[in-house]
């Protein structure tokens, strides 16, 4: 109640200024800019009030977060620019194929819950590398785990910085490159100020802002264009069918987009039909993406890390249910933007739109009040911010806790450790900004690279580490080598392709080991390698086995 009042009080003055954003792109938009600024100030204030006081706070929020709160934080942490902007973009561009991302990014939570959540909390470690180093009794594996966690965080952040850049560009009317730098600096500042505790509190507020800003335009759009608006997540079924059948000009009932074009479209079954030839995507790619995103979900360090912040093992399980439910509210809604955006942008006068901004463009094309469009854009920034902060903390934890304290300088003071965490955060933000400036792919696709990487490396180690005491250090090492090699191969070919460098078997590798779905083969091979090598090498030490039996599975 207090939070809602605070939010309303801060937002109300913006009503005066907001009605200036009428262009799809172009100049500075005062209303949305003020809304964005207000929200960012709110985040920083919350970050200051709940800032980390020691390393326990910084890494795991002092384990004071409730299961619903943790669920909201999971959802906010998860609902990134890829969810907010990227999913609708993928469906807008490739139709039914885009749903592989929707089910991939939600179905993975079932795996995470039934295979890992409670067990990870029972194991009682702070970070993914902590678990790997301890379970496989190996310092080199701890280092490798930390490095992989940092790489995953960077890969994931690149897509988020892309989204932040896009929205800052839209709101401020500035160049994409400058927008990335400004947006990146702001998210870095408040992550540094707050750490995980502030971040977790922020995430709960961010969730509310994200979901409200995402849903309001949907109700307005479905109402305006005469669809079942009380539940747009179901009401848009008729939009999909209308796209498939087409809407003739004679049926539009004076409904027009902001360009004055009729709400009409030629029959477009390719929007809804599976693996349509015009999308350029195949059945194999649909399945591979779904699978890769699912195993990646269960292997993402910043997601796994969220289970450490709940007080009890039971809370770790229930927080997944809450988190998934909160996430699904957004995931049921994102396709609505894509469907309405398809009709509203069908006229050639609208021109080719940037897919990643289709959510905002749809609201604009639907002639929604500019204040609401501004809030929507600010919600998109919040989505990217909430995820970036969690990722930066996860990456910083991997560096300062797993590399610096456990390997480089075990006798360092907590103050020094915190300083190293902050230094790592700054370094990561700089690296991510530089990569984001290259605009390598769509936001959703960039994020999917991080998922495949996690699916090939961290997921097999956690899966076997928890469920099979026979998995030993040598098996884990070889499994990680195989998973990493496949990841490296896929990423090298992807990056080479982006710079027009044709490597041997270019098309074969890019199709079968696509950058957003190489885990379809990488994860099973890493698991198989781990099992085979473990069976032929030394046994796992008895104390590890004992710990698994007595602490994790009892």
């Amino acid at each position, binding site marked *: 109640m207090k939070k809602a009042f605070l939010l309303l009080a801060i937002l109300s003055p913006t009503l005066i200024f907001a009605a200036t954003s009428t262009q799809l792109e172009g100049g500075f938009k005062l209303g949305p800019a003020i809304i964005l600024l207000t929200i960012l100030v709110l985040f920083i204030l919350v970050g200051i009030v709940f800032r980390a006081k020691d390393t326990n706070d910084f890494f795991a929020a002092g384990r004071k977060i409730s299961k619903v709160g943790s669920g909201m934080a999971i959802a906010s942490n998860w609902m990134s620019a890829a969810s907010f902007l990227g999913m609708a973009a993928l469906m807008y561009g490739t*139709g*039914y194929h885009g*749903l592989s991302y*929707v*089910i991939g990014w*939600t*179905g993975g*939570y*079932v795996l995470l*819950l*039934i295979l890992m959540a*409670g067990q990870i909390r029972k194991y009682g470690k702070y970070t993914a590398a902590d678990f790997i180093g301890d379970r496989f009794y190996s310092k080199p594996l701890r280092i490798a785990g930390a490095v992989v966690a940092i790489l995953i965080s960077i890969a994931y952040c690149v897509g988020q910085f892309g989204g932040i850049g896009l929205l800052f560009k839209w709101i401020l009317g500035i160049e994409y490159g400058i927008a990335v730098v400004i947006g990146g600096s702001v998210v870095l500042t408040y992550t540094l100020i707050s750490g995980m505790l502030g971040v977790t509190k922020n995430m709960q507020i961010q969730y509310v802002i994200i979901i409200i800003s995402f849903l309001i335009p949907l109700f307005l759009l479905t109402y305006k264009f005469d669809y079942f608006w009380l539940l747009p997540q*179901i*009401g*848009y079924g008729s939009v*999909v*069918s209308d796209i498939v059948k*087409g809407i003739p*000009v004679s049926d539009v009932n004076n409904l027009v987009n902001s*360009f004055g074009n*009729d709400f*009409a*479209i*030629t*029959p*477009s*079954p390719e*929007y*809804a*039909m*599976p693996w*349509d*030839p*015009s999308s350029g995507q195949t*059945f194999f790619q649909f399945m591979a993406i*779904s699978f890769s995103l699912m195993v990646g979900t269960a292997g993402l360090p910043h997601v796994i890390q969220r289970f450490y912040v709940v007080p*009890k*093992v*039971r809370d770790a*399980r*229930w927080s997944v249910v809450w988190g*998934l439910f909160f996430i699904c509210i957004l*995931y*049921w809604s994102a396709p609505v933007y894509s469907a309405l955006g398809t009709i509203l*942008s*069908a006229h050639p*006068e609208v021109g*080719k739109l940037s897919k990643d901004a289709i959510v905002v463009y749809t609201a604009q094309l639907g002639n929604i009040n500019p204040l609401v469009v501004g809030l929507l854009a600010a919600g998109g920034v919040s989505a990217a911010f909430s995820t970036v902060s969690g990722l930066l903390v996860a990456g910083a934890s991997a560096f300062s806790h797993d590399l610096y304290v456990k390997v480089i300088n075990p006798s360092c003071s907590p103050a020094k450790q915190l300083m190293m965490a902050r230094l790592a955060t700054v370094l990561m933000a700089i690296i991510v900004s530089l990569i984001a400036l290259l605009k390598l792919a769509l936001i959703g696709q960039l994020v999917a690279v991080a998922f495949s990487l996690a699916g090939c490396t961290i997921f097999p180690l956690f899966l076997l580490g928890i*469920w*099979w005491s*026979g998995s030993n250090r040598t098996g884990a090492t070889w499994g990680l080598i195989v998973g990493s090699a496949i990841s490296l191969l896929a990423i090298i070919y992807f990056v080479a392709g982006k710079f027009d460098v044709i490597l041997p078997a270019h098309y074969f590798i890019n199709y079968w080991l696509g950058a957003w779905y190489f885990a379809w083969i990488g994860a099973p091979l890493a698991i198989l390698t781990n099992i085979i090598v473990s069976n032929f090498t030394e*046994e796992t*030490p*008895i104390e590890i*086995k*004992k710990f*698994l*039996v007595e602490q994790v*599975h*009892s």
Partner: protein
Amino acid sequence: MENNDNPEEKDYNISFFKPTTPLARFNRNLILVLFTVWAVAIFGFQILLRIVETPTPEKAYINYELVWDNIKSDKASDADKQVFIKSALSVLGKITIDPNDRLFLSNSVNKLTLELVPETEKNAFVSKIDDFKNSDFGEPDYQNLKNGLSVASAEYIGVNPNTLEAKLIPFELVTANSTNLDPKAVESIMAKYLIHNQSFITDYIFLGFPFHYFYTAVFLLILFVGLCLYYCIATDIAMKKLGIVED
């Protein structure tokens, strides 16, 4: 193995498939059931879709096929050309069309539309295209030029001026950069955009959705939440039964 830590020779091996503790046994059974439901619901359904699908052409493709041989061999009547243009506009109205594909089809539409214009009216029509090409959205004359070209084109291609085809054609005439018709390109473009993988599952409408779309975009997410909820409730009950108190 270091047996010093295990003087009672107790079996401390843990394997998902050979659980040694009551909790691990319970977990294995529950996970196997949930995992099976999960995997079949996701991947089984998509495989089913794949099995039952058949390439299904749109009406525009069927019409195009009826006249295509005549168009290719330069024996097309005016009516054939009009049918082809309407079919091509069905592709050109799609938002997913690739810019290169669009150019090939726009050139074909441009060529055939100009062939439909009587010689006496050709110069006036071409200057209408040029005028519209040289105007920008938002300029005072823009709407008039667009509407003028649309009405004139509608008459030649045999459609009502208040149809989507009539509204689309001015943009294709100004997009075209030649009057070439590349038969190979046209054939592959028309097949690419007008034939879709359909079946009784995609044709059945449920709550307004094509059923498969509802299943994947809405139902599967409900199922995921339901599976997670069931897991948590079942685990809570099992914990009580087994007398396990978690910290």
